C-alpha cells in the first residue's frame, strides 16, 4: 500500500464521516436553517474530500478534471438549492 493509497483512504473515510454527520444533522436539528447548514457542510466538504481522495487514482489528467468538474457542479446546485430553501423558510417565518 503506497502513500497515495493511504491518502485516498484517509480522505474518503473523512468525507464519508462528514456525510454521516451531515445526515444526522439533517434528521436531528430543530429548524430549517440549521438543517441546511448541516447539509451544505456535508456537500461541500464531504464531497470535496472524497473527490480529493480519488484524484490520485485517476490514470489520466482528463479523469481528474472531470472529477473536479463534478465537485464544482455539485457545489453550484447545492448552493442554489440551499439559497432557494432558505429564502422560502425566511418568507414563511414571519407568519409562523
Amino acid at each position: 500500500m503506497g502513500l497515495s493509497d493511504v491518502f485516498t483512504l484517509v480522505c474518503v473515510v473523512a468525507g464519508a464521516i462528514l456525510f454521516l454527520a451531515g445526515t444526522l444533522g439533517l434528521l436531528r436539528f430543530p429548524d430549517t436553517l440549521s438543517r441546511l447548514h448541516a447539509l451544505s457542510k456535508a456537500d461541500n466538504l464531504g464531497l470535496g474530500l472524497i473527490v480529493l481522495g480519488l484524484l490520485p487514482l485517476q490514470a489520466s489528467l482528463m479523469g481528474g478534471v472531470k472529477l473536479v468538474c463534478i465537485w464544482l457542479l455539485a457545489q453550484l446546485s447545492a448552493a442554489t438549492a440551499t439559497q432557494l430553501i432558505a429564502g422560502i423558510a425566511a418568507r414563511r417565518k414571519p407568519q409562523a
Partner: protein
Amino acid sequence: MSLLFDIALVAGLIALALHVVVTRDGRGAILAFIAFGLLLGIGWARLASVDVALTEAAIGGGLTGMLLLRAHAHLAREIPPEAMSRAVPRSWLAPAIACGLVTLALGAVVLAFPQPAPSLAHQAVASLETTGLGNPVTAVLLAYRAIDTLLEKIVLILALVGVWSLSRDAAWGGASQLRPAVIPEPLVFLARVLPPFGVLIAVYQVWVGADLPGGTFQAGTILAAMALLVMLAGLRPAPQTQSKALRVMLAGGPALFVLVGFLGVAVAQGFLSYPEAIAKPLIVGIEAALTLSIAGTLALLVAGPPDRAPAP
C-alpha cells in the same frame, strides 16, 4: 462486500417504494419517489448498465419528479381541501395479498431463469463492425432495433400532441406559462451559469455515445432540463407551440430518421439499413437531430398544455 452494498441498496429501494405507496402525505410521496429514482440510478450502475443509469437518473428522478411536483402544486390550488380529505380509503387486504402473489410468482421465475443465461451479447458485438460504432447499446438503439427507437419518437410526439390538445380552444397554439410569479434570485443565477455546461455535456454525450455509455436520450434529457431551467427563471419565455421553427425542431429528428431509413432501401440493404462506409456518420447525424427533438419534446411535455392565447 459489494454484495452487502447491493443488499443495502435493494433494501433502500424497497423501503422507499413502500414509503411512497403507504404514506398519507402526497408531497412527501413525490419527494421520496425522486430519491427512489436517484437510488435506482445507482442500482443500474451496479447492474453494469451505465447507459440506463444515466437515463434513469435524468428522467426517472429529475424530469418525472419535476412533473409530479408541479402537478401536486396545481392540484393543491385547484381542489378545495375538503374534497381532498373526502377520499374514502379503499380496502387494502385483498389487493395486498394479490400483489404479494404476483411478486412471489415473479420472484420464482427470476430465480428459475435458465443457466447459462441466453444472451445476444455475442451477436451484438459481432455485428458492431458493420455499424462503425463502439457502444453496443447505441448499436441496438440505432441499428439492430432502429424501428423501435424511431417509432418511440413518434410515441413521444403523439404524447405531446395529446398534451397540447388538452388546452382551452383559445390557448391552443399559444405558450405555456412556466415562469412563476416570484422568481428567486439564486435561480436566475443558476439559469445563467449552468446552461453552457449543460449544452457542453449534452454535446459530449452525443459524441461519445457512439463508442462509450451515453447517447441521444441522455443528452436530450440534459438539454430539456437546461431549457426548463431557463424558462423557469424567466430568462426566456416558453415558446409558442404553433411556432414553425419549434415544430421543425420537434419533427426534424424522426423525419431525418425516416428519410435515412428509406435511403437504405435505395443504396443499402433495405429500410433502416445503413451503407457500411458511411454508417457511423449517418448514425451520429441522426442522433444529433434526435437529441434536439427529444430535448424539445421532453421539455414541452413537462411544461404542459399551452395556457396563453397565441400571439398573432
